Each structure stands twice: as structure tokens, then as C-alpha cells.
């Protein structure tokens, strides 16, 4: 019960025409035990910037809390919304300066007036890299080739959302440490929208069986 909780995880951040989509699975594990099958791994930093968390649940939560605090002060001081780059830089600074204590990979994504939608990957160790799409967590290994082929620039919102959901579903199918539901957040100039996809709404692949009415009746 008290063992360190890890988020096996699959997380994605993706740019589309008008903004960004962040997506994540919802499985939090302690060893083999699923501590939370419906966790929310996408956390708000400011009105316009969100972060996907992976790795140690505690580490990622604390880093997010610090960055939210710094950004809140920063927003008051400069008198306008912080940029996604600033948020990502703060996340990177904490990750890099404390690399020997932390084990968390984060994806910072959001929308600002200067760059529109942007996605920054901040993996273990504290690199910061702006990318058109970023993946993280134990499930991301299964997605590299798929997203390299499937991602296009300037997708519509619907296409981008479908792609994120499909990618996470693929990772959940192969990665034991990822599972549960798929949560997405869409951030653009007009605001923020949350979505939730339960198991029955996720696409099935190849040799997976569709749920059928059982022959056993109680």
C-alpha cells in the first residue's frame, strides 16, 4: 500500500492546426498491483498550458506543483499569460537541477499567442526539446514507428484527437503497465476541452476480441 507508486503510462502531446492535444492512459501501479485504474495524468499548469506526467507519481506531482506555483507568480508579475516555452523551461530547470533525485518524464503542451500550439518533451535527465509530437512513459516504445507514419502537420481537431486515442489504445494493448481509460485534453485559442474514452469506445486491433455477450448467465 505504501510502496512507491509508478505510472507505467503512455502519454502523448501532439500539435494540430489550431492547437495541441494531450493524451494519456489511466493506470497507476505499485509493482504489479494497479493502485489506480482511472487516474488523471494530465495536470494543469496555467489556463493555457498542461503537462502529461509519467514515471514516479510523487516526483511528477511535486514538479508540477512547483511549476504551477512559479508560473502563477510569473503571470502576475508580467501581467499576461505565460508562454508554453516558459512553462517548459521551468519544468526542465527543476528536472535537470535535481536529476539525481527525480525519476519523471514530462510532456508540456499548450497554446500561446506567440507560437500557437506547441509541445515540449522533457524526458528523464532534463533535456528540453520542442517537437511536433512527443510520447512518453513505458508504452511509448510501441508508438514511435506508428506515429512517424501517421502524424501529419496541420491536422484537423477530429483527426488529431482520433490519432491520439488510437495511439494510446495501441500502447495499452501491448504495454502491461498502461491501461484503463484514455483521457485527452485539447488546448487552442478558444479554450480547453477535456475528453474521456472508456474501454468500449477504444478501437480494437488485429487479434483482439470484441466484447461479446457472455454465455454464462447468473
Amino acid at each position, binding site marked *: 500500500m505504501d510502496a512507491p507508486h509508478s505510472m507505467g503510462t503512455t502519454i502523448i502531446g501532439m500539435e494540430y492546426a489550431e492547437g495541441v492535444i494531450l493524451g494519456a492512459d489511466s493506470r497507476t501501479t505499485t509493482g504489479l498491483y494497479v493502485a489506480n485504474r482511472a487516474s488523471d495524468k494530465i495536470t494543469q499548469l496555467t489556463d493555457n498550458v498542461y503537462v502529461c506526467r509519467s514515471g514516479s507519481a510523487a516526483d511528477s506531482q511535486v514538479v508540477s506543483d512547483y511549476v504551477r506555483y512559479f508560473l502563477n507568480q*510569473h503571470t502576475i*508579475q508580467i501581467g499576461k499569460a505565460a508562454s508554453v516555452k516558459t512553462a517548459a*523551461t*521551468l519544468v526542465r*530547470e527543476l528536472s535537470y537541477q535535481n536529476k539525481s533525485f527525480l525519476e519523471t518524464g514530462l510532456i508540456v503542451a499548450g497554446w500561446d499567442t506567440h507560437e500557437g500550439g506547441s509541445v515540449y518533451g522533457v524526458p528523464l535527465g532534463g533535456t528540453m526539446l520542442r517537437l511536433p509530437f512527443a510520447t512518453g512513459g513505458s508504452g511509448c516504445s510501441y508508438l514511435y514507428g506508428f506515429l512517424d507514419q501517421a502524424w501529419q502537420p496541420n491536422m484537423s481537431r477530429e483527426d488529431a484527437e482520433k490519432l491520439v486515442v488510437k495511439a494510446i489504445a495501441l500502447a495499452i494493448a501491448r504495454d502491461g503497465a498502461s491501461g484503463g481509460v484514455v483521457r485527452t485534453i485539447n488546448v487552442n485559442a478558444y479554450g480547453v476541452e477535456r475528453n474521456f474514452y472508456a474501454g468500449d469506445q477504444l478501437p480494437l486491433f488485429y487479434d483482439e476480441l470484441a466484447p461479446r455477450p457472455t454465455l454464462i448467465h447468473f
Partner: protein
Amino acid sequence: MSSIGTGYDLSVTTFSPDGRVFQIEYATKAVDNSGTVVGIKCKDGVVLGVEKLIPSKMLLEGSNRRIHAVHKHAGMAVAGLAADGRQIVARARSEASQYLSFYGEDIPIKELCDRVARYVHLCTLYWWLRPFGSATILGGYDRDGPQLYMIEPSGVAYRYFGAAIGKGRQAAKTAIEKLKLSEMTCREGIIAVAKIIYEVHDEAKDKAFELELSWVCDESNKQHQRVPADLLEEAKAAAKAAKDALDEDEGMDAD
């Protein structure tokens, strides 16, 4: 407005009965006795100009600069005690550089001004420190466009369209008010600033001076830099001509 504090002016941590801190006012006097510094905000940028008085013929031309680069997009012109001014510029540079490291972006000019002003003010709060004997005019260009700020020894900082400090500030301010800054480009602005500085320079009291000009504008790619040599010469020539014309008009009364 020269008044002596008599007893209330011995420490920067003492107020006078009428609510003044005399040490800060004396610090301002150091600024008022220095060479004139002018800054204007034109429609496409900011121009800073300094009347750098040359105390000795032995000085190398171009040394003892009074305009300093603070960051790519910002510069500061200093009036008053030169060493104090250097310290303020060092602090400004440090703030700008740390902001970039921490937040990943160039410091907004307003934020830079706030931080420098806070530092200058800090040094008026403790009896073991003395106030800075210099004021600085900060010019910069960020996402909100070109901006001009002035930070005084008291730590007060305002945003300006046009600002002047030093010996000839009254005459300079009058001249600046006559300019139509919102319609002026920086190219025209450097000529105007040069003319103002030549005009307010007092030939009788101060011997030689060197004109220092810098700008940050669309033409300089939003980077703070010394005005290019050819434009500087053009400005000096125009200013000299204007001054000579003015002297002629005022004329020798002998005839």
C-alpha cells in the same frame, strides 16, 4: 530648490519632519550636475543620446562610455556618478541573463525596469548603504514594442515618451516636447537627439564633449546597438549646423 536638511540629512534612514529623505535628494543632485542624457521613443524604436563631457584632452576618444548594452534588446544610458552607474548596469545585465536562463525567454522591458528599480530602491533602505548617485534611462524593444523608462536614485521608475536628465535637462525637455515623436522614425530621431544635445551644451561652462548615440529599432533588427558610424557623423553634422545657425541668429551684439 536647494535646502539644507540640518540634522535630518545625516542618514538615509531618517525622515525630515516634512516627510523628505534628504540623502536621496542629495543623490539626485549628483545626477543633476552630470552631462545631459536624453532618451526618446519614436514610432519604430528608442534613441538614447549622451553629452559625454570630456574632463581632459588626454582621454582616448570612445573611452568611458556612458551607454551600455544590457541585453540583446535593451540598453541603458547613465547619468551621475559613473561608478554607481556601472553597478546598476551590472545588476541589469545579471537580471536579464538570469531571467533568460530561468524562463527561457528574453526579459520583458517592463520587468527589467521593475527589477532594476527595486534594486536601486533597496539601497535606500539601510543605513550601511548609500543611495546610488546615478539615474539611468533604459531603452528596449520587446513583444510589446519599443519602450523607454527612467530609473531615479530614489528607486522610482516611470515609462516615458521622452526623458532627459543631467545639467541641460530643462532645456532638453522643452525641446523634446516640441517633437512629434509618434510620427518620427528613429532615423529622424537620432538627428533630433543630436541637435538637442548640441543645443543644451553650455560652451562657456563646459569645454569639450563627445556625443554618444545608440538606438534599438526596426532598422537595427530590434537589437540595441551604437548608431552606425555614418549615421552618427550625419547627426553630428546636422546638429553642428543647427547650433551654428542658432548662434548666428542670436548674434554678436557688437554690431
